Every structure is written in C-alpha cells, then in structure tokens.
C-alpha cells in the first residue's frame, strides 16, 4: 500500500479495501494450495520425516524405537561413512569446476558465428536430455577394459587401465561420465546469459583497444555472474548428491573397494540393503547440512548483484 492509497483510498472505503485484500489473499491461497499440498506431502513432509528417522532404530520390518543421537555417534565412527564423504567431496571438487569451465568455454564458442552451429548445440545438449541410466550403461561399455576408450588409447600407444574394475580409476571414470552428461545443459544456461550481455560493451572495449581475451576476462566472465552462480550452485548440489551413476556402474555396491561409494549411495545401502534406516537417515541429515553449508558459501561468493 503506498502513501497515496493510504491517504486517499483508505479512509473513504476502508472496509471495502480490506475486504478486497482479504478476498485477494484467499484467492492466492486457493491457487497455490495444490502446489503447497503436493510439496508438503511429497517433498517437505518426507524431508522432515528423515530428520525424525535419524533418531530411531528400525530395519523396515521390525517396530521402530527412539534412540536419540546414537545413530549420529555410530555414523561418525563408521569408517565407511568417511570414505563416502571423501569420495563425494572429491567428486564435487573436481566435477563442479570442470563442468562449469567446459560449459562456459563451449557457450562462448557456440555464441560465435560458426558454421553448422545448431548441429554442435544439439550435440552438446544431447547428453543432458538422455536418461542417466542409459548413459551410464553406455559408458560401462566405453570404459570396458576392451572397450571404446581403451581401443582409442591403444591406437595412440597408451595401454588403458581397467577403468571400472580398478579402484584408482573407477571414480575418475564416473567423473568423466558426469562432466560429459551435465556440461551441455549448463552450456545452454551460459548461452542464455551471454545473449543478455549488451553488445555495446564489447564494442566500447574494442574501441578502447582491449584484446579478445581481455574482453572475455573483463566483460564476459563478470557479466555472466548470475548464470555462473546458478550453475555453480546446481552443480554443487548435483555432484554432492550423485547417486545414479555410481549405483549403475558399480552395480549398487559402490565398488571396487568402495572407491565409488558416495554419500547418497551409502544412504541407499544402509536403508534398503542393510536395514539400518536410522543410520541412513542420519547420513541424509549430514548430506543436507553439507549441501546447505556449501550453498551458503557459494551465495556469499557469487550471489551478489552485478555492479557495472
């Protein structure tokens, strides 16, 4: 309500205005109700339930009983949990920056007037619209000891490793797969961001004598910050929660030797395979805190509005 409305409109038709406001609010609530209900039932509710479950002992088939923080104590003493945390953090620390850099690089390239641009755009975007189960199965064959990748490495004289069977390479293999499948989507986000940068900026910089690289560094990168912020946050959340690719490539075990065991996979195993629901829920809460904390940090770093 502005000062104008308060001064003129309110005294004259006080009740009417209030009533109208109330009706307006009621309509808004009615329209948002289905979404709110769905979110509460299928998103917020289960999330809160996970907090509750982290305090119980339950194996899915018996009756649950309250154990307080015992699950957290057991979880932090579990060496396997720290292996999973290490794998997830390494995975996020490598994949997120690399996929952001590749996405930005390709977006800038795709923004140039290259021949057959739509074909390349399609090629880069295609992985992100394919099901991750399908791409994982595809990469199982590419990473096979006698597969496509090692065949290629063989032609240039490198004896390729047993990517999926060797604990030193298995996580790297999933990193490559993940970067391949997500960069295309983020490239499109960057492309949208690039289109929003006024062309006049580049022209002014060119007149001032800035080189192409300088223009990229001093105009493109800073002005892309809203897109970068979105991509870094989404990338971070996605990589810290990575589950499907590890699950499919390791056949659900997180092997070889737990080298592809991520926090999300550990949660799944504890709850559904080993019947340790409380322990898995405690790990879920830990993952929530980890994702929330890192998102807040990124927000501090990149979440500011652009200053021209």
């Amino acid at each position: 309500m502005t000062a104008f409305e308060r001064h003129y409109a309110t005294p004259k038709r006080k009740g009417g205005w209030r009533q109208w406001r109330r009706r307006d609010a009621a309509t808004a609530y009615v329209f948002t109700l289905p979404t709110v209900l769905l979110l509460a039932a299928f998103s917020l509710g289960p999330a809160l339930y996970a907090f509750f479950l982290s305090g119980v002992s339950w194996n899915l088939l018996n009756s649950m009983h309250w154990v307080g923080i015992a699950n957290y104590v057991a979880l932090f003493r579990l060496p396997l949990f720290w292996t999973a945390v290490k794998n997830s953090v390494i995975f996020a620390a490598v994949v997120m920056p690399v996929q952001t850099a590749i996405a930005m690089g390709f977006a800038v390239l795709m923004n140039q007037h290259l021949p057959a641009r739509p074909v390349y755009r399609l090629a880069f975007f295609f992985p992100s619209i394919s099901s991750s189960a399908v791409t994982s199965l595809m990469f199982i064959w590419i990473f096979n000891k006698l597969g496509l990748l090692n065949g290629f490495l063989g032609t240039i004289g490198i004896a390729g490793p047993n990517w999926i069977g060797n604990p030193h390479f298995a996580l790297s293999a999933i990193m490559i797969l993940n970067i391949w499948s997500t960069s295309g989507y983020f490239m499109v986000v960057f492309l949208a961001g690039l289109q929003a940068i006024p062309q006049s900026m580049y022209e002014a910089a060119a007149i001032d004598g800035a080189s192409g690289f300088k223009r990229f560094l001093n105009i493109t990168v800073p002005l892309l910050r809203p897109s970068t912020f979105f991509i870094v946050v989404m990338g971070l959340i996605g990589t810290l929660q990575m589950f499907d690719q590890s699950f499919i490539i390791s056949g659900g075990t997180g092997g070889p030797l737990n080298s592809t065991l991520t926090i999300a996979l550990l949660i799944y195993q504890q709850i559904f395979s080993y019947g340790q629901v409380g322990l898995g829920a405690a790990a879920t809460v830990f993952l929530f805190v980890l994702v929330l904390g890192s998102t807040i940090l990124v927000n501090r770093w990149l979440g500011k509005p652009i200053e021209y």
Partner: protein
Amino acid sequence: MRRIKQVSILSTTAFATAMLAGCGVANATGSSASGKPVTIVVASWAGTNVTNGIIEQQLAAFNKAHPSIHAVYRPISGNYQTILKTEFVAGDAPDIITVNNGGQAPLFEAQGAVIPLNPYINQSHYSLSGFFSGAINMFKAGNTVYGLPRDQSPLVLYYNPAMFKKAGISGPPTTWAQLQTDAQKLTNAHKQIYGIAQTPQEPRWAQFIYQAGGSVMNASMTKMTLNTPAALQGFSYFVHLYRSGVAVQPSQVGATWGGQALGMGHAAMTFEGAWAIPYLQDTYPQTPFAIATLPSGPVNNKSLDFPTAWAITKDSAHPRQAWQVIQYLSGAGEARWVEQGGLVTVRKSLVNMPYYQRHPIYKNILAQLPHAVPWNFPNGFSQYVSSTLSNVSLLAVEGKVSPKAALQQLQSQGVSILKSGSAQ
C-alpha cells in the same frame, strides 16, 4: 535428493504395480463369496525368459485345475529384496515370494515377513522327505518351516573343451594340482586368454576352504571358523591362482562375470551354477562348453549349493489358497519345471527324469549335488556378505594383504557381528 528421486521413480512403478495387485486381491476378497476366484500374486526376481515362461506355464496349469483360485505371476525386476522390503513396509507384499540365501531368507524369517508353514504342512499331510535335505534345511529355523524348495544349483567347473584340446589336455582337472597346471597351460596373457576368469567373491572361494577340510562358519551358524589352518590352506590356494597369473577377474578381460568371460573366449574355465547353461547357449552359441564336477582338494571336492524356495508372506489375505499354490509348485509344478529345463530340481525322485537323460549337460551338475554345502549366512550378515567378504578377498587377490591377514580380518568382523546379536 533429486537424483535419489529419479531412482525412486523406478520403485514407485513397482509400488504402483503392487497396489494394482493389492486391488486385485481386495476385489477378490469382496467377490469370493459370489463364486469369483481368489487372486494369489506370485512374485520372483525377473529371471531369464526361460524361468519366467516356466513359472507362467506352471501357474496356468494350476489355475486350470483350481477354478476357485487365480494365481498370477509378477516378476520383480531391479533390486528384488529392496522392492520387497518396501512392499512389506506398505503392507501389501505379494502373497507368495521366492526367497534365497545370503542372509535375506533368515532376515525375512526372523522379522516375521514370511509365515511358518507347519500348520499347513500338518493339515495336508505334506511330506518333506522328498526334498534334498540341504535344500529344505536352509528354509527351516529349528523345526519351523518357512519355505518349500523351488530350485537349486551347486557350483561346478565350466570349461571350454576346444581350448583344452588345443593345449593338449585330455580332460578337465580332477585335483587342485591339475587345476593349477592346466590353468597355466591354457593361459595366454598376450592374447588376453586366461586359465580361469572368476570374480573373487566369497561363494567362489569358500568351496576351496571346504575342499581343504575347513568351513566359513560352523553348521549351526553360531561361530566363525575362518581362523583354522584348513581355511587358510583353501583360501591361500585360491589367492595363489590369481597371484600366479593363471586366474583373472572377469573385468580384466572386459566381462562382468565368469560365465561371460568363458563365452567371450577369454577364459578356459570358470566356476558357476546351472544358471550359466541357458545363458551360454543363447548368448554365445559358437563357444563350446562342457561341465565337470569340481577338482578335489586335500580332503574332498565339496561345492556350494544355492537353493531357493517359495514362501507365503504375512501380507497375504488368503494364506490357505497360497499354500495350495506352493504345494502345487513344489509338487507337480516341480516336475514340469524340470521338463522345461533351466534349473536343477530339489526333489530327489526327479533326478532321473527323462529330461536329464536327454540333456547330458546336467549330468555332472547332478553328480555334484550330493557333495555340496547349502550356502547361507545368519540374520545380520547382509553387509558382511554383500561387501566385506568381496572387498577383503579382492585385496588379497591383488596382493595388498596376505591371505592370512585377510582371513583374520574376516574372522574378527564376523565374530563382532555374531557378538552384537544380529542387531538387524
């Protein structure tokens, strides 16, 4: 959570199927008085087309003979035990499920997810003496029977006779010493061909421990027995096959399991059960293969046996009708099972069925049967079985820990699970 959700969509689909199935049951309850048949849902893991087809045929024959019951087959694809557990939580599991080894059958039994069959057995004077004792004992806790055996298979030696001939070896190895020297002769690392390709998981090394006179646990599964000299002898022999370069993990030759490595022609030998027969015949028809009983160790040529059984769940609204179904499946249906081929019978009398005479490939599997230990772990060992055992043996096979240290680790971890009183 986004990614977990994607996976949960899969299980939601399963849920939806279960709910539909549940509706079917509910409808049947309402209308059974009016003469409509009662629906009984029979679930199993999605097998090959062969096994799926056989179960459907068995149920069709049953439905024809029992107009008051309508049994339907629902194969569960994906993670069988996980999907079942979620259905138990929701209270609408199928009426009949298939249970097997690896600690899941004991879990379902201990938690009351499957019901005791004794009252039904007594009521219908059903005889259990026709089953192989190993197969029926695995689904008994004390005197309580939780499942009627469906099929089983011991591990046997699969080999490629063409490769043997080429290497100048007259027949399959019958002793540990022969296994080692034959594997040596058959290995050509340059051509990516190895004597043996086998995942170093526990149901592929435990038989060597038995062959040396040892065991993994005592018979009543109350004590770990991996700390004996016999266990060490058996396990060391297994590890040595890999350390000496005559055995490899299937992934090193681009395969996911031993049967596949054999079919691809990268392995001359592997240890698998009867399930590899239809697989090899269908997928690699050009690769010749034959089956032999396991080579003898210092004490015997014991193998491991993997029985499965039909069980009735606590969620079944019609346990009496479900009992009729499993009674049929483990009796007349069992004979049909053998006629159609596929897996190995659990009924002693069916060993002489004409099918087996016409298909001599089964001869040595049946011959191995009396020398096989049903493979099982008590409740509480899920994680130990699915990850600890294979991780530690992988370290030993890769030479990162000695066989002795590996067994010590497995022994002490097993002991601590037993001590914690199967907390699961």
